[in-house]
């Protein structure tokens, strides 16, 4: 009897001790920083290779289709692809499936163009380069040359210029977004007459060159819900728009059928997927360092080990204590 009570005591341990343990396990690796290497998988490499094959004549969509709750997983994915596109001068249309995603998209764009963060891109707002645009200079290389000859110098540490309306357009949120995707297969401008900053899309060089989703080469959706499916159902199945997923780990396993059937090019699953993309960016010289997702993977290792340990210990206590006999049901399969 006393043996049982010992196990029982162990199982009834105040859970705040476990909370403390997981707290410690997720802080300490940050302070030490192992930086363990990460190998990349085919699912992520295929997205990377695809984006890497694009240049200034192509265009992509990045959908920030998540709410703040899952930003830790989704934002690094969006940021990584955004940086990749900026590096290759691929114009990016930024959208959001839900209202709160609008704010997340703004946040990600701000992160990539914030001079305080290393490896940023200096953004030039739509009004600032209005003169050059009206003079018909829209090719990226010519644009940079003219812009710099006007006396603008690239700030120290910046990776390059990005021009609003040429390199990115913040379209943002629109309700019943699945229908918006459908509408954009005919015309992007009809669905978004203005961008989130009130600039008319019609004047944007990137829209002049890519008027509908037919002229867009990829839709990358980063999402924490089934919102990402809309891009397949309404974009891919209608006009063959190539789609790639960046989904939270919770959703990731559900979408493997889409990879095998070729409905999506590839998928980043959770923080690990984002870390892989960061590694690919780093290895290919597109960024100078890896970012938050990669640093997080050390903690992920420690926390996983702790949780596995807890499962094993819990099961030992459970079976050694004989608790399994108490609740056994005959009807159980």
């Amino acid at each position, binding site marked *: 009897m006393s043996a049982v009570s010992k196990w029982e005591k162990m199982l009834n341990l105040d859970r705040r001790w476990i909370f403390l343990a997981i707290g410690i396990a997720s802080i300490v690796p940050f302070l030490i920083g192992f930086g363990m290497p990460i190998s990349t998988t085919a699912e992520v490499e295929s997205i990377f290779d695809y984006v890497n094959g694009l240049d200034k004549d192509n265009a992509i969509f990045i959908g920030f289709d998540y709410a703040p709750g899952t930003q830790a997983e989704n934002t690094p994915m969006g940021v990584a692809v955004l940086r990749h596109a900026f590096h290759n001068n691929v114009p990016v249309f930024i959208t959001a499936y839900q209202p709160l995603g609008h*704010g997340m998209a703004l946040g990600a764009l701000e992160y990539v163009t914030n001079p305080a963060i290393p490896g940023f891109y200096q953004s030039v707002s739509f009004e600032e380069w209005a003169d050059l645009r009206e003079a018909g200079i829209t090719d990226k290389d010519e644009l940079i040359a003219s812009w710099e000859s006007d006396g603008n110098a690239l700030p120290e540490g910046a990776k390059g210029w990005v021009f609003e309306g040429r390199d990115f357009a913040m379209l943002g949120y629109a309700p019943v977004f699945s229908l918006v995707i459908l509408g954009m297969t005919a015309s992007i401008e009809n669905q978004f007459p203005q961008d989130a900053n009130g600039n008319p899309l019609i004047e944007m060089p990137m829209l002049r060159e890519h008027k509908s989703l037919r002229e867009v080469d990829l839709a990358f959706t980063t999402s924490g819900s089934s919102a990402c499916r809309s891009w397949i159902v309404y974009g891919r199945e209608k006009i063959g728009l190539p789609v790639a997923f960046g989904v939270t780990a919770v959703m990731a396993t559900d979408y493997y059928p889409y990879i095998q059937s070729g409905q999506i090019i590839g998928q980043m699953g959770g923080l690990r997927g984002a870390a892989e993309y960061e590694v690919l960016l780093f290895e290919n010289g597109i960024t100078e360092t890896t970012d938050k997702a990669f640093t997080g993977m050390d903690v992920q290792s420690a926390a996983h*080990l702790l949780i596995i340990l807890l499962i094993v210990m819990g099961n030992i206590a459970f079976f050694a204590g004989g608790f399994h006999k108490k609740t056994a049901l005959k009807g159980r399969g």
Partner: protein
Amino acid sequence: MKRTVPLMIVMVGGILMMVQYFIPHQYSQAVFTNYTQWAPIVGAFALILGVGSLTRVHSHKIRRKTKNWQYSWAVLIPLYGMPFLAIIWPQSLAGGMDSPSIFHFFFMHIQVPIQSTMFSLLAFYIASAAFRAFRAKSALATILLLAAVIVMIGQVPIGEIFGRWLPETGLWILRYPNLAAKRAIMLGVGFGILATNLKIIFGVERNWLGGAGK
């Protein structure tokens, strides 16, 4: 009027859009284009339901002074304050570094931290459940836990220390057996959704009518 008309609207709308899919003709496309313009407008008004019921619940609490009624102000004030801020300061909606605003501040520095932290609480709960509840009580639960452990170690860098076979096995589980299970579920769920669609369109399933009086 109360039940028949909505049921008719559902049926006519549903059949129309279904048939429309198969007709590329310009008249059919015109119907569809109109619909894509109308639906977001109608859909935008659906917010009224959420705002209305939230207002009702919390003003009720404040009036009745039920337990913890003071907190209801913490719901109602930002609920109406946010749109008000947006109206008096419209350009602030775009947010960004260039135009810091109270509106943007509330979202980025209150909403985002709270919501992401609430979700991260689950990390703690999962750890506690790992110790106290996840049991290999049956053969099936044992397979599940084993697969979970392999995938968990395989997905993190430390897994490579045990050798390449571990992450590879994890990926193999993901790519084949997992895919098979998820495809079967996807097909089953797909049929379920389709059957529900049909039932609603043809008025067999009417639960959605509930909650607005007979």
